[in-house]
């Protein structure tokens, strides 16, 4: 076996290459690190920046829409407010009972007595009261109530005359706006004066008027819309 001895001083010897076993992994590691760095750089300065910029643009876009949305909200609020006012005015306008007409009708009814042959009525009291009861809890709304007191004269059949008056009242135009009336009741009385007829039947009638329906549903005065 030959033994080779290099007698050249080291500075004259041929340089030895780094062994591949060392070099290759180093190169691979270097490449990987560079690659990782490049990917990171691309990701950070490319994709992330793009996404960030898109997001910022959208944020700006959103910011510009805030004012119109607030304006829209105010418009909606005013719309519902005015719609409620419009409904309220309609309710107010239809809430009125034409008492001139109703009282006139009632006077016609009382006066239309065939000269006393049908009935002869003298009223002492006529009272109209506001609708009673808690209309919000009950489904059925009620109208005004009317209470009438008086006397129905007849020497022979005062109850019969009163009954005729009661019937005539229910058939009259005056009663068209009423829902119910109490049944004929009362008592016979003898008048203490010298006028004729001297006998009479007491009149005490209670009637309920129909509630006036506004054009749209609602309860009470809802003039102000509740904020959403």
């Amino acid at each position: 076996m030959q033994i080779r001895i290099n007698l050249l001083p080291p500075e004259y010897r041929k340089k030895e290459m780094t062994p591949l076993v060392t070099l290759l992994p180093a190169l691979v590691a270097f490449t990987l690190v560079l690659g990782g760095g490049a990917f990171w750089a691309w990701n950070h300065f490319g994709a992330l920046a793009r996404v960030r910029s898109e997001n910022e643009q959208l944020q700006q876009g959103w910011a510009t829409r805030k004012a119109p949305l607030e304006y829209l909200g105010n418009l909606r609020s005013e719309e519902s407010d005015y719609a409620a006012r419009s409904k309220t005015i309609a309710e107010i306008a239809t809430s009125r009972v034409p008492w001139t007409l109703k009282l006139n009708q009632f006077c016609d009814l009382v006066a239309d007595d065939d000269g006393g042959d049908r009935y002869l009525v003298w009223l002492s009291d006529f009272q109209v009261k506001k609708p009673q009861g808690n209309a919000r809890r009950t489904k059925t709304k009620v109208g005004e109530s009317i209470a009438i007191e008086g006397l129905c004269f007849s020497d022979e059949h005062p109850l019969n005359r009163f009954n005729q008056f009661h019937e005539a009242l229910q058939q009259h135009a005056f009663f068209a706006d009423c829902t119910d009336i109490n049944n004929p009741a009362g008592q016979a009385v003898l008048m203490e004066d010298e006028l004729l007829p001297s006998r009479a039947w007491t009149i005490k009638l209670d009637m309920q008027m129909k509630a006036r329906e506004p054009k749209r549903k609602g309860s009470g005065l809802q003039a102000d819309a509740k904020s959403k």
Partner: protein
Amino acid sequence: MTLKNGNTRFALICAGTAVLGLGGFGHFTWTDMDRMEDLDQSTKMLEGKIRTADREIRTIPGLEDKVLILREQVKEYVTILPDDAEIHAFVNQLTRFETESGVVVTKLDDTQARQRRSARRPSSSAFESITYKLTLRGTTQQLLTFMDLLENDYDRFVRIPTFKVQAFDDRRSGPQVADEVSRQHSIDLELETYVYNPKKRGRGHVTIPNELRKLERLRDDGKLEVFASDVALVRHEIEASPNRRDPFVDPRALTSQIDEEERRAQRDELDDLKSRFQVLRKALALEEKETNLVKRMQVADKNNEFLSTLAADVNGRVDEQFFTVLELAKEFETVVLGPVGQLQAERGGIDAAAVLSVRDIEQRVADMEKAARSREWGQVITLHDEIKQLRARFTAPASLRPVSARAEELFLLASAHRAFDALELVFGGSVHYRDDPGKAVVIISGPSLGPNSLSFGPGEVVCDGLSITRITSTEVVFDYSGYEISRRHGTDR
């Protein structure tokens, strides 16, 4: 050996650096990816919000229109409600109604109205209810008149939520009260109205850009037509029934006070009024049949005078409440008062001369139609002048407008024909092609066309305002200032 060691160290350094480097970049990359994911989510959310916002913002113009329409609507609707000044003056109105109706207001409670006036802070609601409480004295008829003035005469919204009538008590006053007029009942009633506060506390109108222009556009599109009947106050005209008995007065007291002699006197009076009315009716029937214009006017004047006298007597009986017997009062209302009132209304609007002139005008327009059909244009113009003279005598009622319009049309047609005739056009000859009427030609001469005859075809202008519409084998149809005039040319083909 050295090399190996060096290489080992080198390898270790490389490996360590690689691990550190890769680890660092990996971490940063992972952080960035995480951040990107968050940003992506945020972006998606923002995109969704922006899409929704854009959709809603697109509804703004429509909503602006709606709000403007609602504002105008409410503004129109609230005219039925009194404003602040009217509320303050409402008590003056009540005083006027009191005087006109004859009731006597013994108490007026306007506390709520005064409180509202002195309140410093504006109300938080758009509508404020204000109530007045009144105590009155009056007969039933006076009460009805008072209510009628409130509900039908006063043009603002007022309602009566409650009222009470307590009949006059004869027993308290005794027999001294002789007549129904003095029997005044005691009446309590409430009057309620509303005041509108357009600007509530803390809320004002939204400022809409270019509001005036948008309102103008809505108005032009007809979207601001408010149907006021939606909230029009329902009013009822009641007929006065002065002779109807008061239901709050003892009916026995009325009938028992009337003796036989008085009853007879009322019967006689009623018969007299009825017979006078019958005479008037007959006279009116004769007036209709009178053909002579002058005589008809004289008879009409006489009848009107008779009617006035009769009406004055009838109204006098009403004012005096002459007919106290019920059946006679009813008969008086049905047979005399109502018909006389109606007749007065019919004849009272225009005087006799005007009634007669209307008939003459209508007759003349009929004559104009006849003359136009016979092409007597001179007669049409003469009749038109007569109509003008008749119309100068009185203000024309609305019913005469269609007739007058027709008279004008006929007059203009006749004038056109007369003007055409004045051109004195003469036809020299014509050529007509059966298959192609558009190529027809007619030769016309006349003072307005110069010394020579000229040929014209359909559609050509002959002179100012005159053109040829078509040429047939027998006639030429012209258009003269919008009127179609045809003339036979009497020439051979």
